[in-house]
């Protein structure tokens, strides 16, 4: 057996050597043939390098592509939304807003839309609109219940996973963080089924303990809670990851010192963990608050904003006004109000994040 293996090996080696030699020869021939072409390419590249701007100006070339896209698709739309909020949208624009005729070069910027100026009319309209206030109420309701519930769970999980006695930490952490990877619409469709009144798994389990079918999707109160449950499922693991990272930065000596002083579990949590974790904790709260304000996919898929608008969120109301009713001016005014609220929270976020 051994000898035959050796023979095989020797044959294999000889074969490989021959292949290698053939390939090398072919490559050498090819290189010799291609040298003039290659040299020409190298000279051209050197010329190009010599022509590229040196230090002081090269930075502009680095930022140019980013800045171009940024100006057209980010900076301009921000101001255009503000502009649009003072107008009523009449239709797609015709004719040009601005043009330069330089003989061979003709530049034209077309009108984006036909608009009627209404001043602050859109803002007056939204303040008097019941559905706007309904969407504000729904969003606030979800916010007030969902954010504390989720952060509480996330904090408890982070503390548990940070406990020294817990085994299988990696497995638990992975399992709890798994929903982070779930596509928003995909997981929403799963919840649509999970909370189905007749077929849903949840009502089946509740029936098993003698509770009876809960109208998760057809009753306004329960539908809001369904949204809360879905969002909590998706984002608890996300917040747990951030809180866990925060917990792990707390120096162990602080706990040891507290122990020497005879602190019990609650006192260690209250006087060491909480104050040390405060910046991360506040940060997570603000992040979740902003996330809840932006809620769209979940109510769109799970409840469609219903029943009778009891789960419609601000973004969903904006979407309906803009792209179902084509009240783009009014929807822009709604957007400006929405952004003002969210930005206030975001500024708080950056302030809190920048503190440490």
């Amino acid at each position, binding site marked *: 057996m051994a000898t035959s293996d050796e023979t095989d090996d020797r044959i294999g080696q000889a074969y490989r050597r021959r292949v290698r030699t053939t390939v090398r020869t072919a490559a050498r021939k090819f290189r010799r043939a291609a040298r003039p072409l290659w040299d020409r390419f190298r000279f051209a590249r050197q010329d190009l390098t010599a022509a590229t701007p040196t230090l002081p100006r090269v930075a502009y070339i680095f930022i140019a592509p980013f800045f171009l896209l940024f100006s057209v698709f980010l900076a301009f739309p921000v101001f255009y939304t503000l502009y649009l909020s003072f107008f009523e949208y009449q239709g797609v624009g015709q004719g040009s807003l601005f043009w330069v005729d330089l003989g061979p070069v003709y530049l034209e910027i077309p009108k984006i839309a036909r608009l009627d100026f209404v001043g602050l009319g859109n803002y007056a309209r939204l303040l008097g609109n019941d559905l706007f206030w309904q969407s504000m109420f729904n969003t606030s309701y979800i916010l007030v219940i969902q954010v504390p519930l989720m952060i509480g769970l996330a904090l408890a999980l982070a503390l548990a996973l940070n406990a020294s*006695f817990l085994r299988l930490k990696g497995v638990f952490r992975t399992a709890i963080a*798994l929903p982070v990877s779930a596509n928003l619409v*995909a997981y929403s469709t799963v919840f649509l089924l999970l909370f189905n009144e007749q077929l849903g798994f949840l009502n089946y389990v509740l029936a098993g303990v003698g509770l009876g079918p809960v109208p998760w999707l057809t009753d306004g109160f329960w539908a809001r809670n369904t949204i809360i449950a879905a969002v909590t499922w998706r984002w*608890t693991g996300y917040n747990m990851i951030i809180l866990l990272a925060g917990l792990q930065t707390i120096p162990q000596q602080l706990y040891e010192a507290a122990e020497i002083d005879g602190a019990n579990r609650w006192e260690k949590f209250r006087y060491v963990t909480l104050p040390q974790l405060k910046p991360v904790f506040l940060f997570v709260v603000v992040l979740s608050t902003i996330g809840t304000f932006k809620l769209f996919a979940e109510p769109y*898929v799970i409840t469609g904003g219903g029943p009778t608008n009891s789960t419609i969120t601000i973004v969903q109301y904006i979407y309906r006004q803009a792209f179902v009713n084509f009240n783009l001016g009014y929807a822009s005014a709604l957007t400006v109000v929405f952004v003002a609220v969210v930005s206030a929270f975001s500024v708080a976020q950056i302030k809190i*994040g920048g503190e440490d």
Partner: protein
Amino acid sequence: MREQRRKDAVWRFLTYAFVITMVVVMMVPLYWMLVAATLPQEQFLQFPPRLIPGTAFLDNFAALQERLDFVRTIRNSVLIAVVYTLLSLVLCSMAGFAFAKYEFKFKEPIFYAILATLVLPIQLLVIPLFLLMAQLDWTNTFRAIILPWAANPIGIFLMRQNMKSIPDALLESARMDGATEFQIFYRIALPTMRSSLAALAIILFLFQWDLFLYPLVILETADMYTIPIGLAQLTGFQRIYYDQIMVAATLAIVPMVVLFLVLQKQFVSGILAGSLKE
């Protein structure tokens, strides 16, 4: 002492019970999805529900494929997300390098202008972008989905922060050796940024993968749908076929779950970086 030990045992038990309950809560929807995707519709509609996976996944998939070309939908989503991620990585790392390592006029104002847009929710851009795309005749195209978000403020912010840590002496010595500025960027700066680039790539990919409102407005025909839009259309039909929807949801979720399991470290650093915590 014994009292203390008993208390500790109770505490441990409660901690385990809580963590395991939460794991079950997190797993049930995913398991339920898999069961629903593998059962024929009639079996699925039975009461009490079956809790063991069946074998009808491929049949359900064929039925789904007949109603909406979901393979194409997945291909669209992957294509858009990959192209977007690569493009945005190039733009963000180039610009981030300039902001970290060069001095130029208006550097601070430009950077703060970009940074200021970080606080703005992307929903702000949907209406004007819709009008812009309509004017450019770009509605129902992939470039309309990819380009507007390629200049990603989070990306440039992270790249600038990380590239600041590259020692100037390293760049200067390359310059002495006659390297051009672009060579310094892609031969020296970029290779040191590998882990930050991986984290940013995950942030960008997931951002585009989950984008819903904007493609909903821009994409019009079924052959252009991304996964979220295709799924939302399936739930909007007159008759809802749960088995098919769950097949589609499984196809949307399972690959990402696998990716998460494989690249967990990068996902976590992506989450931590994306939440702007340095």
